[in-house]
Structure formats: C-alpha cells, structure tokens
C-alpha cells in the first residue's frame, strides 16, 4: 500500500509539473499577442476620440464632452451602441458573403501589426520579410470589400465595392515601389533592420532625408489605401450613400469602422518606421551622454521611451490624416485613377531607379 501510494504520488506530481509547464508555455506564447491586441484596441478608441476632437477644433465647435472627462469614453459609448443595434440582412443578398466580408477586412489588418517594432528589438515577430508581409496581407482586404459590395444586393454597395477594389489595386503599386526603395537602402525587408539602418547618424540618418519623393508618394498612397478623404470614393456619402457599407448595421458596420481606424493607425506606424527612424531617440548630441547613463541604469525605461517616441511620431501622421479629411474636397474617380497611374507610379518608379543607381554607385 505504501509503495503504491508513493508511486501514485510521484506520477501525479510529475504530471502536474508537466501540465504546469505546458500551461506556462502556452501563456508565455499568447501573452504578447494579447497585450498587442489590447494595445491596438485602446489605440482605436483613442483615435476615434482624437478625430472627434480635432474635427471640432478645425470647425471651431465643441467636441464630445459628456462621456467621461473631456469625452474620452465616447468611443466606448459608440461601440456599446453598435453592439445593441439589430443585425439586418438584405433579403435577396448572399448571406455568407455579406457576413464574411467585414471579417476579412479586419483580420487582414490585425495580422499586419505583428511586424511593427515599437521599441528597440521590441517586436512581436521579427520576420525577414516584415514590410513585404504587410503589403501582401493588406492586398487581401479588397476581396472582403468586393464580398460586401456584391453580397448586399444594392447597386450603390456594388459600385462602392468596385471602387474600393480598383482604388486599392491602383495605389498598392506606388506603395510597394516606395517600400522597395527603402529596402534597397537598408539591404533588408525586416522592419527591425530598417529601423537600425536609420539609427547610424541620429536625426539626419532618417530615410526621410534620403527619400523625400518616396515619402510624399508613400503618404498619398497610404491615404488612398485607408480610403480617407480626399480618397473616400468607395464610401462617398453624397454619391453612394455609404458605398459597400450601406446595408450594414450594428456590429458588422462597427467592424468596418474598426477596420478603417486600424488601417489608418498601421499606415501611420509604417510611415514612422520606414521614414522617421522608428523608435530612435532624435535628441541632439548634447543630451546623448546623459541618456546613455540613464540607459545603463534602467532597462525597462528604455523600452518605455522607445514606445513613447514611436507613438509620438505616429501621432503626427494621424493628425495629418485627420486634418486632411476636414480640409480637402473629394476627388472624382477619373482624377483618382489618373493620379495613381499617371503621376504616382512614374514618380515612384523613377525614385526606385534613382535609388538603384545610387546604390550601384556607392558599391
């Protein structure tokens, strides 16, 4: 009896130990992903509030002020309202396409967050093809928009879906060529390597100074990818009601809303990473020694500084996008496609050729 009991206890102890190891391993694998998703969610709430406040400032009126201090909880109130609204499904549309469309849009954007370096080597997964992966995954989103446009059985939704697909394909090519130029300068497609390549000379090492035309083309193309005014033709409130979103209500409409702000945030993050040095400290040489002393004492402090610097730079482009929305009129579809194919594409190709020739010359 004693021998059996001892063996059973040993086996049980080892079993618990292994199961605890497995649980710990699983938690350790999923914890960064959950933290990242939580950060993304908070950033979406912040961007919604930010847009309300900035638009109110530009139009000289009062923004949200009743939900929480300074109206900070407005986005939560909006989300709760969308949750409680009824899910409508058009009678003669395709139910499956109608339901899957918003999911594809959101999923294809959230995956892109895994390659962004928020701090020095503070990245969820440092892939060798990080930037390329972002471009590849963002090119899947038009399929979701076409699904939504077709599945709604509405001519305005259909035209909105078609416009979304054409616009996304048109502006994806200049965007890709600009990214190619950056990867040529950095000799890598990894986002961490691109950030490291810009940290050699401090402020003047940013790719902004070596790729000014690429920077402008990238900004315009990313606005078009996000379907922000003046490039919101797929939505086009005065023309197509709300484009491919017309027939949606409740949480499905909320998913499109979330996808739009997620796309805006990730485009701003990539402008920061590709052209503005990522998480590098851009303080001049006088303060570098002091920061080095601080760096030696506090490791976590460095990470927090990196995240703060990245987000501060990202805020600049969020502000630009939001201000652009409330100052510029919408383009026509022919103007949109002319800009994409006749101007941005030749400029980005020329930029790529210049970069290639300068790289050969430097070799």
């Amino acid at each position, binding site marked *: 009896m004693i021998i059996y009991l001892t063996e059973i206890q040993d086996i049980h102890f080892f079993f618990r130990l292994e199961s605890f190891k497995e649980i710990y391993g699983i938690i350790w694998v999923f914890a960064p992903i959950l933290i990242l998703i939580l950060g993304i969610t908070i950033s979406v709430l912040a961007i919604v509030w930010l847009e309300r406040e900035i638009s109110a400032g530009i139009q000289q009126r009062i923004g949200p002020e009743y939900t929480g201090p300074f109206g900070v909880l407005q986005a939560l109130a909006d989300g709760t309202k969308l949750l409680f609204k009824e899910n409508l499904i058009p009678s003669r549309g395709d139910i499956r396409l109608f339901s899957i469309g918003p999911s594809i849009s959101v999923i294809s954007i959230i995956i892109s967050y895994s390659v962004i370096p928020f701090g020095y080597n503070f990245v969820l997964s440092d892939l*060798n093809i990080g930037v390329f992966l972002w471009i*590849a*995954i963002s090119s899947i989103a038009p399929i979701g928009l*076409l699904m939504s446009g077709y599945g709604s059985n509405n001519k305005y939704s259909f035209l909105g879906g078609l416009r979304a697909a054409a616009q996304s*394909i048109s502006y994806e090519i200049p965007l*890709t060529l600009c990214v190619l130029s950056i990867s040529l300068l950095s000799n890598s497609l990894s986002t961490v390597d691109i950030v490291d390549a810009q940290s050699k000379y401090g402020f003047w090492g940013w790719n902004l100074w070596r790729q000014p035309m690429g920077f402008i083309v990238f900004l315009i193309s990313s606005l078009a990818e996000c379907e922000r005014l003046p490039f919101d033709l797929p939505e086009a409130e005065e023309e197509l009601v709300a484009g491919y979103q017309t027939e949606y209500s409740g949480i499905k409409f909320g998913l499109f809303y979330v996808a739009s702000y997620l796309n805006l945030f990730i485009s701003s993050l990539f402008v920061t990473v590709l052209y503005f040095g990522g998480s590098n400290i851009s303080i001049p040489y006088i303060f570098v020694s002091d920061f080095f002393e601080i760096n030696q004492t506090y490791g976590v402090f460095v990470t927090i500084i990196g995240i703060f610097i990245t987000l501060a730079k990202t805020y600049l482009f969020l502000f630009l996008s939001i201000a652009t929305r409330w100052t510029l009129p919408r383009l026509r579809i022919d103007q949109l*496609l002319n800009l994409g194919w006749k101007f941005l594409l030749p400029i980005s190709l020329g930029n790529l050729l210049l970069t290639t020739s300068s790289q050969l010359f430097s070799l």
Partner: protein
Amino acid sequence: ILGSLGVVLFMNPIFSAFSLGLVLVCISLFYILSNSHFVAASQLLIYVGAINVLIIFVVVFMNGSKYYQDFRLWTVGDGITLMVCTSIFVSLITTILDTSWREIIWTTRPNQIIEQDLISTSQQIGIHLVEGYVIGELCQLLDVGLVGYQLMIPSLPFASQLVNHQG
C-alpha cells in the same frame, strides 16, 4: 482540397472565385511550412491580392445567381473531367510514394555548401538577384493592374445596367 472542389462544384461563379482565393491562401500556407517566407508573401501579394481580385472583379459583372439554376448539375463533360482529374491525382500520389527521398536529401548537401560559399564571398550578387526577382514580380503586378484598369472604366455603365436588371 475543399477549396478546389468548391471552385469546381459551385454553380455560382462568384463562389467559385472566392473559393479560388481560399485555395491560393492555402498554397501560401504550404510555402510557409516549407520555410519559404518570401515566396509565401509573394503568393499572397500577387495571386491573392492582384490576380484573384481581378478574377472576382470580372465575375461580379456577370448575371445573377438565378441564371445558373437552370443548368444541369451533372453532364458528360463533367464525367470525363472527373475521370481525368482522378487519374492525374492517383498518378501524383503514386509518384510521391515511389520516390526515394534519401537520394534527394543526399543531393541537397553539396548545394548547401555551394550556397554558403556564395553567401560568404559575394553577398551583394545575391541581393541584386533578389531585387531583380522582386522587380520581375512587380512587372506582373503592373500587367494585372493595367488589365483591371482597362476593364473597369468602360464597364461601370454596363455594371449599373446589370444591377438594374438584377434588382
């Protein structure tokens, strides 16, 4: 495999096109399993993002789903095609099972040694080769985008007429 069957068996061509997208995404996952991350991303960018969007773009202009309910589910052509595809599938499986993988593993080692030499001595040549490859892929993307552009502009009024007819 389910996606492939979906491409073939769905009567509605729009569902077939979306199933094709599913197939292409699964092929990309195969490349990821083979540690070819760059090819996987290229697969997503070129085939899923550009070519499949083009196919969906074209198929969406066709008639509504009512038209296809009139067709028979099974015809003689379908039978012949099924026999051909099944025979090809079986021959593929037998070929895979009969191949001696040890010889292939033995032959890859000298290639790895050669690759290491190339990387150590002339890394820049490899970089330029990769860049040329990327530019070649982008040329394909340009062609697809131009075709989509040409298709879309004259088709918009036609699309509105189709939608009127459908509604």
